[in-house]
């Protein structure tokens, strides 16, 4: 049984009565194979005695239906259905503090394993990843098109109403406040610091060469289109600069 009347468990791991798996076994195996194929996997999973020290110290476990011990156990026992189910929601609860990794007597890194699962969720275009990452699009746009993850014009009272009235305790235009920072690289509003044109072109080259742009296209095609347009222009600007410099020589 699958569809809108099915429970979450039935949707993701099948119905034990009808024995119909909503996901073909081959797909579950492919996802797990992708997680295992990362060379970090063997470094971050060395065994597990279910001691639970990771969950005992986990901040996300205080607030969510989430346990790093469970994640490690699912991977260690190669529970493909359970892994797939955890990738729908649970892996996104992790706060990535790595307290679990620091304390695990086996030297496991549950936080690191979760990153491998998040990467796999993105690669397979899982709906959970798309939903989770939607609010991140501003950060992605800023990062890929400028080389900065965060900029002053992103920190406004509109975006962070719950931070209260004191985003700045001095009432002055943002550009003026930024000019008053005594580091010349920081007299900016659209990027955290002034980024050299060459720098952002180099970072874009890294994104291209390492498959990050493919990840982005899988998750948000519109954002991918916007970013490639911006970066094509920046590349042209850089090429023009190089040509002018060459002519000047």
């Amino acid at each position, binding site marked *: 049984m699958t569809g809108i009347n099915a429970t979450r468990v039935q949707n993701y791991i099948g119905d034990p009565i009808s024995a119909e798996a909503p996901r073909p076994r081959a797909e579950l195996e492919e996802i797990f194979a992708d997680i295992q194929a990362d*060379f*970090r996997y063997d*470094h971050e999973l060395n065994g597990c005695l279910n001691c639970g020290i990771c969950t005992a110290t986990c*901040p996300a476990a*205080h607030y969510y239906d989430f346990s790093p011990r469970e994640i490690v156990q699912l991977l260690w026992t190669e529970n493909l259905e359970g892994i797939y189910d955890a990738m729908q929601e649970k892996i996104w609860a992790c*706060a*990535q*503090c*790595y*307290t679990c990794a620091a304390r695990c*007597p086996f*030297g496991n890194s549950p936080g690191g394993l979760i*990153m491998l699962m998040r*990467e796999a969720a*993105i690669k397979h275009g899982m709906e959970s990843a798309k939903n*989770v*990452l*939607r609010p991140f699009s501003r*950060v*992605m746009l800023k990062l890929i098109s400028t*080389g*900065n*993850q*965060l*900029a*002053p014009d992103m*920190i406004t009272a509109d975006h962070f109403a*719950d*931070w*209260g*009235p*004191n985003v*700045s*305790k*001095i009432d002055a235009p943002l550009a*003026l*406040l930024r*000019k*008053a*920072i*005594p*580091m*010349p*690289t*920081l*007299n900016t509003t659209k990027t*955290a*610091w002034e*980024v*050299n044109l060459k*720098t952002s072109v*180099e*970072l874009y080259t*890294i994104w291209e*060469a*390492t*498959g990050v742009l493919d*990840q982005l296209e899988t998750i948000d095609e519109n954002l991918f289109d916007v970013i490639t347009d911006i970066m094509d222009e920046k590349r042209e600007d*850089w090429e023009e*600069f190089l040509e002018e410099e060459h002519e000047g020589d």
Partner: protein
Amino acid sequence: MTIPTGERFTGHGAEWRDSSLSPAEADTATRWVEQKIDKRSMLTNKDRVEDVRDIMWQLEKEGEIVVHRVSDEHEPVMVKTLYGWEKKIPTKRLWHHKSCGQCGNIPGYPASLLWLMNELNIEYLDETDQTSCTAWNYHGSGIGNIESLAAVFLRNFHQAYVSAKAQGLPEGYYYPLVHCGTSFGNYKEVRSYLLHSAKLRERTKQILGKLGRLVDGKLLIPEEVVHYSEWLHIIRDRITERQIIDASELRATIHPACHVYKMVPEDAIYDDDILEGNRVAVSTGLIEALGAQVIDYKTWYDCCGFGFRHIISEREFTRSFAIDRKVKIAVEEANADVMIGHDTGCITTLDKNQWIGKAAGKGYDLPILADCQFAALVCGAHPYKIVQSHWHASSTETLMDKLGIDWQAKKAEFEAYLKQIEAGGPQDNLYDPRKMVTSGPGFKGIRIEHQA
């Protein structure tokens, strides 16, 4: 055994039974746990530990990589890390690897650090040819991968290596100093993976080659990955020489940052004279040296609640954790006047998420500052021009009152300064702005006098 009436949630399942310890036995058991829990031994209980620098030197010997050394010219100081290994911290000729969160949101954080370096006559370079480490985005979203993280690491550290050429100085002149805890943890982890994986080295070498960022056709790996808090730690005695404001009446709590000492924990600095060597030494050592009373609190080990993704899209987690597990404990248990941190996300989270607590009857107001901001403040830095305390939502004013700083007068000075800039008047800068462009558009190719 009789199960007490009323609600009781243990989370241990139906098979759970009360231990029925006497009060004395319970006290003994609790004390045993307290001797173990949250202590240094929690991090050193591993069977297999390796110093990746051994692999690094071997790879250099085999001609596979080039190591950017912390040389004598950087006047390094040796410190001990978790297992008693030595780490070499450069004190001068530093290349600032900035933090996007600090520069975008808490600009007094890097400005205070640079101000301290000016006070101590430390040579440095702050330039435009640096990207974010991209690790905040990676840990928050999963967009990115080990190759992209490694290539960004190698690219930025290569730029640090060659940056001095723009001033007519040799390669390797400046040594990178990483401002952000997230970058620091990420870069250390990535360096370890690069040293372990020939395949990762091969793939990133192709990319770095395309960018023209190899040294003699090889990848450049830094001898040490150094966080600014480590620099502050080893230079703390020189900072206290410049202290002009007494901090001895202050009760300070420290929030150690997860990615500073829980990621690659073997590289974090520990000192037996600082909290008996049970806590990472950075920040605590500095604040103690500045004379404040460092007060312990039971949730010191917890993260701040930043969560990377949560600060953006699940803020109810972030603010609940920040208030209930950190700020509340610091105020009610430690009776703290301030909480000091050493990382971007932590300062942001703890500082910005207090106001909303009023909605739940938790109206705490604990000043939050980075260690370098606090150090600059008690050394006489301007609270607004340098420490830029107006970007802090928490009540830095109450802290300044306790330190005897006339912040109203300083604020008025700063507002007058804003009017001066608005009218086209001169700006005060911590360094010559011509230094900040080292190549590409706007590069002037100036030669700057440097220190011997």
